[in-house]
């Protein structure tokens, strides 16, 4: 009961944030919070395979970048009025572009996941990394879409009744999608599907003995995760009005993993806390010194070495269930 109250309070605060920021005279806070919400969607998606499924994917930046490029490429074709591959018209509608991002993310996760899930352990970590690097280099070499320099998007997505040029509206959109995505993940992890996924993490052998083949469950989880991460990437492209291969850089995959661990592996709200903490920390440290990574590195080290269970565990210690 108390937990629900606190959660409702936190959500109310999150909704009221643009007004609070205006009252406090720091409008930049809204775009910072937008970034946090977007990364929270990506981290929560990664958490489905990493935390619940126990599959260490070191290549989720690929889906993040694919989502961004789906939005960017559709914009570029909308602008030039040329058909993509001679078939698909460009678009700046919010629904078609974000839909395309999720479709592209899901389809690539299906293909890459089907191949990667044949391996285990370290090989799985490395093959997911390798596929992400492949896509990274592919987009670096695609000169038609900016290559190394990336692609500017001059118009944010359009949706009747929304004006995304207003930072607050973009923030509310991201917040709403985050809440919706978390509700979906909550249902997924509580379902029979989620139980099988968690069972496979604990013991694949036991699941086999129960007569369950875990491969299809893991693959579906991977696809859902890829779709969510691509949605976040599409939102990021809207927020920054820019996509570049940097979104697919392997360090980005590492950052997403850190958000999940920092917040709490295999918890619903952990990745959200982790995204808020990491984006906030980066923002705060980089305002303070140019060499912020010199400090962030050891902090991460300390979190991994001594912070078992992440921020969620810390929160639970302050507020026992």
């Amino acid at each position, binding site marked *: 009961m108390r937990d629900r109250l606190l959660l409702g309070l936190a959500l109310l605060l999150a909704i009221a944030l643009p007004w609070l920021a205006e009252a406090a005279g720091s409008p930049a806070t809204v775009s910072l919070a937008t970034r946090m919400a977007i990364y929270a969607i990506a981290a929560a998606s990664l958490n489905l395979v990493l935390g619940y499924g126990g599959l260490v994917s070191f290549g989720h930046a690929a889906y993040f970048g694919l989502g961004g490029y789906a939005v960017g490429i559709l914009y570029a074709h909308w602008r030039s009025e040329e058909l993509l591959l001679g078939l698909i018209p460009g678009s700046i509608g919010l629904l078609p572009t974000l839909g395309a991002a999720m479709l592209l993310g899901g389809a690539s996760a299906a293909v890459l996941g089907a191949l990667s899930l*044949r391996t285990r352990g*370290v090989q799985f970590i490395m093959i997911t990394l390798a*596929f992400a*690097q492949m896509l990274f280099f592919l987009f670096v*070499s695609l000169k038609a879409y900016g290559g190394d320099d990336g692609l500017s998007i001059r118009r944010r997505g359009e949706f009747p009744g929304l004006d995304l040029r207003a930072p607050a509206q973009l923030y509310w959109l991201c917040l709403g999608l985050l809440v919706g995505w978390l509700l979906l993940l909550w249902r997924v992890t509580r379902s029979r599907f989620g139980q099988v996924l968690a069972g496979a993490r604990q013991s694949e052998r036991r699941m086999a003995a129960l007569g369950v083949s875990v491969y299809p469950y893991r693959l579906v989880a991977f696809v859902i995760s890829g779709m969510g991460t691509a949605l976040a990437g599409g939102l990021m492209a809207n927020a920054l009005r820019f996509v570049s291969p940097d979104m697919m850089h392997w360090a980005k995959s590492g950052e997403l993993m850190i958000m999940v661990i920092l917040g709490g*592996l295999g918890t619903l709200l952990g990745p959200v806390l982790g995204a808020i903490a990491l984006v906030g920390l980066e923002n705060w440290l980089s305002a303070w010194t140019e060499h*912020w990574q010199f400090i962030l590195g050891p902090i991460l080290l300390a979190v991994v070495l001594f912070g078992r269970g992440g921020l969620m565990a810390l929160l639970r210690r302050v507020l026992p269930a």
Partner: protein
Amino acid sequence: MALLLEQLLNGVQLGVMLFLLAAGLTLVFGIMGVINLAHGSLYMVGAFASAFVAAQTGSFLLALLAGLAAAALCGMAVEYVVLRRLYARDHLDQVLATFGLILFFNQGMVLLFGRQPLFVDIPPLLQGAVEIIPGVPYPAYRIAIIGVGLLVGLGLWFLLQKTRVGMLVRAGATHRDMVRALGVDVRLLYTLVFGLGALLAGLAGLMAGPIFSVQVGMGEQILIQTFVVIVIGGLGSVRGAVAGALLVGLVDTLLRAFLPATLRSVMQGADADALASGLASMGIYVLMALVLLVRPRGLFPAHA
């Protein structure tokens, strides 16, 4: 023909660099079960230390010693302070902790040396070219790298197969608990193996100095290629590291050398070059995916 020979040698030379890194990484993984992303940072430390000493003293020998010592000491310090606590943890924790180390080392180098790349001269003895077959000159420095790689490979083989320490290392890789039970100081052994791996990484780094520029971030690029090498070769297997390194070195170099011309025959110049460089960069990852799909444990699995 001459071009092909030259590119083959370039491929072998890249393979040697990758082998020096992969040997240490695969030993550390095979024996301690640790994935160390910061291995590339040790390569960078070796390169920076030797470039700095070379610029200060002008002595190649001192630069060599400085690079090796800096990388080995740095490696042992990292093992003692951080990695020792990660042996019993799962791979996820190891990846994240060593990712933190990368951030720390990269920014540390920026603080010490700045963002400008350092350039290193080839030692005077190895400047110029040698004719490998009549009419085909090849840089002496690159031949020296290949020679060093061969020596290190032979030395490692001797160390692992013919000495008592090597026996303990091999035993530690396959029967870790038994070695511990027999009263061997495993912690010291681990630190030494880690130091050896770091030394080889530093050697690769200081040799890379005159070929590539010495700059922050140089470690990550080659680190990911090194991971491809050890996954193709089979984790924990030095033999696999040799095979994987040569394979990756050759495939990468030959694709980069011959793909642009091939593509230019079917499409426009600038586009073809961009696409070819992208495809060439993707080549080794495709190779790795193919190998893993056919043999999920690599070409020479260590604990078969």
